[in-house]
């Protein structure tokens, strides 16, 4: 019972990995505070910043604090973008 958390851009550097497993525990789901509690401190602190967005299964959440993730879900933490 786990979800995956993909880390993009400088957040992958901060975590030292592009992907983390998110164990869900007995509740079989996890919310935003629960996710933050599982992250390394520096990453958790960055993740709360207003410019960092969260996607759940390929859809960006309007408000990341409303997250409810279940087993098999793919989460992604998205720092500010920079293309072209």
């Amino acid at each position, binding site marked *: 019972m786990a979800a995956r958390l*993909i880390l*993009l*851009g*400088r957040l992958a*550097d901060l975590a030292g990995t592009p992907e983390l497993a998110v164990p869900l525990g007995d509740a079989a789901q996890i919310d935003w505070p629960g996710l933050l509690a599982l992250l390394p401190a520096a990453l958790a602190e960055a993740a709360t910043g207003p410019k960092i967005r969260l*996607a759940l*299964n*390929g859809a*960006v959440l309007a408000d990341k604090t409303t997250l409810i993730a279940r087993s098999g879900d*793919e989460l*992604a933490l*998205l*720092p*500010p*973008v*920079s*293309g*072209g």
Partner: protein
Amino acid sequence: MVIVRLSSQSFDPAAELTALEGTMPQAGGIASFVGRVRPTDGTQALELSHYEPLTLPGMEGLAEQTLARFDLEGLLIIHRVGVMQPGDPIVLVAAGARHRRDAIEAVDFAMDHLKSDAWFWKRELRADGWHWIEPRSADHADLARWK
């Protein structure tokens, strides 16, 4: 023709542009923009990363928006991902239209959105290592022109 592509390998902007031109005989004007890795500031390499579930769908959505907003005969958006060297093309946007300002403004619009409203993350390799690049404030101001 509408072409939207993420490319993990180098591409030839002139060849892509010529191919597009052939698909739109009614286009009296074709505007294009090529962005390349600049050899300035001691940049040795540039890497663009993306997030599969968002990046290409986002580019396709941008193409739809661009086609809805301007009267176009064809549109091409190609964006590199991966590691690039100075001089390598990063992005090509081209638009054909019956009237020139539709073509030019469509390219301007699509580039502003690719620059600071598309799912890419850019970092540069300098002598002291990799540095993540965030959009300049000018990029955000450019984007705001279209709201």
